């Protein structure tokens, strides 16, 4: 069953959005959706026809994708776990452009583009800065589930910290859920108790738990965000390894609308600024700011080569690093 | 509150001779079935009134109406001449009507005192224990009924539980006491005690209603009687003018031929042999007190061995151990000459055993399942009804119908859930099931408990017939007359020991009683 013919009538292209997490998760999904909406703002020929969220298991994902594909020209599959589902569905709808977010495909498909963020690079910078800022030279990384993108943060931090100070230690904890605030809080408290004084929170709404733990801690504790800056959420936030999923998706959708989106995989890195490290206002010494500059430059210039596990494995098919 | 202000726990009776409770035209239907049919009943203060009738006559149902458990479809109830309507048991209780159920309404995990303390609490944080202790003492003072307040009910024997039950009612100000087959679980001694108590209560002006199938008991205590038959009153009067035959005729419609004395049997080889059996009272505490000690028994073909003893002497444990339900600490059991080592109920039945459990309600029937399924509960699982794991349903229900006729189980259809039948009929169904396989050894634990005259007579005949066929019967009963009249030999069980085995022909109540009490403080 192919579709998209309806597009012919007038220029409008309708977009379907499907995600694994709830649309209001205050993190990954929400930013992605924001990006799609931004693209729609920019181009009045685009419209967001419907959203399917909480598509937790493969059957639901496939059903969701199928029903979206039948009535849209662009389908955004927002989440790593969609890779196989897209691989199943995409070939059946050759006229539909599938945008797969934060995941790689097992197999190359003509009408599929996977946009990923090389968070590992960001992690290197965070690792270096945190190590420089840390007093105990013990850093921590808290994530929900153990998936490539989260482990990338860990490995990146390890590499970055080593660049700044070889005997800085990095530990990781997985709470089992990006949105479990209570667990996140307890995990952070546990880390702080074991001497960690700088925590990277790779969580969605769970981050609040980390802020609260830092707030309640007796020893000064720094928090590093990902995705965006929530400086006002807690005074302990130093900065954020910003991964602007909204920017990334805005680009991708716009390109897709203009049919200029190449099939294959596009990995956004520090180059485009879609990934960047940002300090909260008033945080960060000049030296640290310089350090960020330096590391970022070294990475973009290829002076620093990512260690194993920092980046997702390079796919066999067309791949672009931006 | 437990009592109305005017009638304290003290045993102040209300007049005597005056009508206490009058039922007129009380009718209760269950679906199309009429359990009580325009029943008139008149109970006077200060009398002991016997309510008689065969199984399923509607006695229990009637009493449930009186105590507010059921509401009558028609008819009126008058208490002290004022019409009353009980929608809930507490209404009846407030009005001073209390019933001692066959299955006690006690909480085993609480102490006796706590059981007395169960009462509506005006304010949640009130602690009623002291008050309860008070009442208990008042009752004790008035009737001599003493309880041991701080003992767990679980540790009390049946007799003691029954006493507690009565104390409870008196504490709550009951003035009309109803006993539904109270002697069913009592030893003779305990029954005499109960009889005295009833007289004392009546003398104190209370009204007592006694449901019993044992005419001997009725004649020993009751003043007046009312007989139910098929739900309707078939007669009433004063015991003084009544004869047993007359009452039986009223109950069952015609006379029941007296039972011929047990013909002398010719015992064959031993079917069951027990040597030095020791059994713990609590399976989980083998080191704890023993329920049975050094039991030696032998049951032979063509004989009925009676086990006499008061309730709680370990009969239940003996049955369970023979069945293979309970582990034995030591000792040997042989069935049909072969050692019965790996004991389990299945082995027991395969070795040619059958059992009529004492606690029918829980051990003998599956109330939710149909009559025919219950009757063929065991035969259904072996050929011919079982064809390579597949049931022959048609044949099974045919077999069930046959047995229902043979054992005169009264029910509209074999597809009825057995739970709907009256106690008596349920028991006949069990009897049918256990005898149908015609087993070598039949363990009958209180087989006539709760049976009406005719049914009891029927059971006797069936057991004797079984004996004539060369089967062996182990008869466990708390009723000495029953044991004496039914058995060839009698083993007296007391405090978990066999105190002696006597020839039934020579045995008397006195001699057995002596054996029971001898070495009383053993263990």
């Amino acid at each position, binding site marked *: 069953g192919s579709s998209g013919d309806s597009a012919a009538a007038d220029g409008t292209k309708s977009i379907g959005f499907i995600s694994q997490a*709830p*649309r*209001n998760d*205050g993190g990954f999904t929400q930013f992605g959706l924001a990006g799609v909406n931004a693209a729609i703002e920019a181009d009045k020929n685009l419209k967001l026809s419907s959203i399917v*969220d*909480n598509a937790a298991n493969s059957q639901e994902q496939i059903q969701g994708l199928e029903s979206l594909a039948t009535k849209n020209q662009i389908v955004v599959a927002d989440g790593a776990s969609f890779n196989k589902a897209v691989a199943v569905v995409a070939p059946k709808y050759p006229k539909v452009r599938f945008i797969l977010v934060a995941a790689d495909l097992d197999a190359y498909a003509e009408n599929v583009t996977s946009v990923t963020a090389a968070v590992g690079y960001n992690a290197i910078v965070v690792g270096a800065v945190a190590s420089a800022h840390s007093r105990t030279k013990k850093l*921590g990384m808290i994530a929900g589930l*153990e998936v490539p993108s989260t482990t990338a943060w860990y490995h990146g931090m390890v590499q970055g910290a080593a660049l700044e100070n070889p005997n800085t230690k990095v*530990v*990781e*904890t*997985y*709470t*089992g859920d990006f*949105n*479990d*605030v209570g667990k996140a809080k*307890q*995990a952070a408290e*546990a*880390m*702080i*108790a*074991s*001497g*960690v004084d700088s925590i990277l929170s790779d969580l969605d*709404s769970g981050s*609040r738990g980390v802020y609260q733990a830092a707030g309640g801690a007796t020893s000064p504790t720094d928090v590093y965000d990902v995705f965006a800056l929530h400086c006002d959420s807690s005074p302990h936030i130093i900065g954020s390894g910003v991964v602007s999923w909204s920017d990334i998706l805005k680009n991708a959708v716009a390109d897709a609308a203009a049919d200029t989106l190449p099939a294959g995989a596009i990995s956004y890195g520090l180059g485009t600024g879609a990934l960047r490290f940002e300090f909260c206002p008033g945080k960060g010494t000049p030296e640290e700011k310089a350090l960020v500059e330096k590391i970022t430059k070294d990475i973009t210039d290829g002076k620093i080569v990512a260690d194993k596990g920092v980046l997702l494995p390079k796919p066999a098919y067309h791949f672009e690093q931006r | 509150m*437990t009592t109305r202000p005017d009638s304290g726990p003290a045993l102040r009776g209300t007049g005597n001779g005056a009508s206490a409770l009058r039922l007129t035209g009380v009718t209760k239907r269950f679906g199309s079935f009429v359990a009580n049919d325009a029943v008139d009943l008149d109970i006077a203060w200060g009398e002991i009134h016997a309510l008689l009738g065969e199984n399923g006559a509607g006695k229990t149902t009637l009493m*449930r109406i009186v105590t507010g*458990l*059921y509401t009558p479809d028609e008819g009126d109830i008058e208490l002290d001449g004022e019409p009353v309507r009980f929608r*809930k*048991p*507490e209404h009846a209780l407030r009005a001073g009507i209390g019933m001692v*159920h066959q*299955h006690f*309404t*006690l*909480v*085993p*995990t*609480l102490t006796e005192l*706590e*059981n007395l*303390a*169960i*009462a*509506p*609490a005006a304010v*949640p*944080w*009130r*602690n*009623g224990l002291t008050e309860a202790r008070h009442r208990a003492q008042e009752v004790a003072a008035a009737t001599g009924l003493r309880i041991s307040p701080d003992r767990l009910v679980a540790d009390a024997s049946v007799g003691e539980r029954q006493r507690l039950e009565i104390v*409870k009612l008196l504490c*709550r100000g009951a003035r009309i006491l109803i006993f539904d087959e109270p002697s069913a679980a009592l030893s003779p001694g305990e029954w005499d005690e109960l009889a005295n108590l009833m007289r004392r209560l009546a003398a104190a002006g209370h009204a007592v209603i006694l449901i019993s199938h044992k005419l001997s008991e009725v004649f020993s205590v009751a003043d007046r009687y009312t007989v139910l038959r098929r739900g309707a009153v078939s007669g009433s009067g004063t015991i003084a003018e009544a004869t047993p035959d007359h009452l039986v005729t009223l109950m069952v419609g015609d006379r029941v031929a007296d039972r011929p004395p047990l013909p002398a049997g010719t015992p064959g080889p031993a079917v069951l042999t027990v040597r030095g059996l020791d059994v713990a009272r609590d399976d989980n505490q*083998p*080191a704890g007190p023993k329920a049975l000690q050094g039991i030696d028994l032998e049951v032979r073909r063509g004989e009925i061995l009676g086990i006499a003893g008061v309730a709680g002497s370990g009969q239940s444990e003996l049955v369970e151990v023979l069945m293979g339900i309970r*582990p034995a600490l030591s000792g040997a059991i042989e069935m049909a000459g072969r050692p019965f080592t790996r004991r389990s109920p299945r082995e027991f039945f395969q070795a040619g055993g059958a059992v009529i459990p004492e606690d029918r309600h829980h051990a003998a029937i599956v109330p939710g399942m149909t009559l025919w399924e219950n009757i063929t509960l065991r035969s259904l699982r072996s050929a011919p009804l079982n064809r390579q794991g597949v049931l022959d349903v048609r044949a099974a229900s045919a077999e069930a119908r046959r047995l229902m006729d043979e054992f005169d189980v009264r029910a509209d259809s074999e597809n009825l859930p057995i739970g709907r039948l009256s106690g008596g009929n349920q028991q006949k169904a069990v009897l049918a099931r256990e005898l149908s396989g015609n087993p070598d050894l039949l363990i009958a634990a209180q087989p006539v408990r709760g049976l009406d005259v005719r049914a009891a007579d029927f059971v006797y005949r069936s057991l004797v017939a079984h004996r004539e066929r060369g089967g062996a019967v182990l008869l466990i009963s708390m009723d000495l007359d029953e044991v004496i009249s039914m058995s060839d030999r009698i083993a007296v069980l007391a405090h978990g020991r066999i105190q002696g085995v006597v020839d039934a022909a020579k045995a008397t109540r006195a001699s057995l009683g002596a054996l029971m009490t001898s070495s009383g403080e053993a263990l």
Partner: protein
Amino acid sequence: MGIFDIAFLVAAITIAAPILLAATGELVSERAGVMNVGLEGVLLVGAFGGYLVMAGTGNIAVGFLGGIVGGLLFGALMGVLAIEAKVDQIVSGIALALLGYGLTTFLNDDLFSQPRAFDPLPRIAIPVLSDVPVLGSALFTQDAFIYATAVVVVLVALALTRTTWGINLKATGENPVSVDAAGVSVRGLRWAGVLFSGACAGAAGAYISIGDVGVFREAMTGGRGYLAIAAVLFGGWRLSGLGVAVAIFAVTDATQLRLQAVGDIPREVWVAAALLILVALGTGRVRRAATIFRLDRRRAGAVELAGVAVVAVLVVLSVVRPAVTLPASLWLAMPYVLALVALAVEGKRRHKAPEALAVPYLRSEV
């Protein structure tokens, strides 16, 4: 630095409190003969109710009331099903669990397109006690909910043992007929039990959402309801046992988070485990001194042998201290596994279940 420190105690207590409260409520209701397997659903409703009201009023106390009301509503639903309709309690419990999840998720999606977040309960230091060296900062520098929980537990303990109401309640769970015959309303008592458990679960849920972290998310109770039920059973329907059970869960949970953070497992964990097993074996021995089965003896022997072997291994491990790391998800399963092990070790001895538990009461059964 060691992982079993004050912060550890605090964490354990924070984890324990809501489970303890919910379990206490469930205990009361089960002593009355009503088993609410849907406790998880009730917790969720409490959590969302609290969050909803908090979002409306901005007052956390009112928020908690909202949670309690939510819990009461679901408790009432359980009552209608189990007490009035006399349908199977396990089944109605499952219904509550499903409904609780569906409803809260649905409403959350529908009402909160933007998730809200609030400040959690502040910690209150009790003047003198909080200065006690170690325990002071762990026990007496907590938030109001935890103090309240302690009070409730004590009150329940008193009520069950010292009051007519308590006796009636226990009797209802054991033998409703006796209560009915005493003119006490079985329905009334069971309703009281169910509603109390509903209120407790509601409050506990509210703590999980607004009390502890100030946000709500779908299914955020994460199996705590089931842990509470397990605690009641493991505790043998006694408050004391229940406390022990909850402590075990909480400590394991707190430990696993720390162990993840530490990376490879530190020495003191091996030692602690070894000690635990030794204690277990010891108590087991004492018990069996009283009760010896022919069958059980063999098994006991095997168990003890295994136990000793494990201890030996643990001692060795604590000496060589290998760099062992467990996958995160196995750490996450740890509390449940331990709960199971605890139940299995306790086995039947603990099981003094109320006779009439989950048995609907019908008069004509007398």
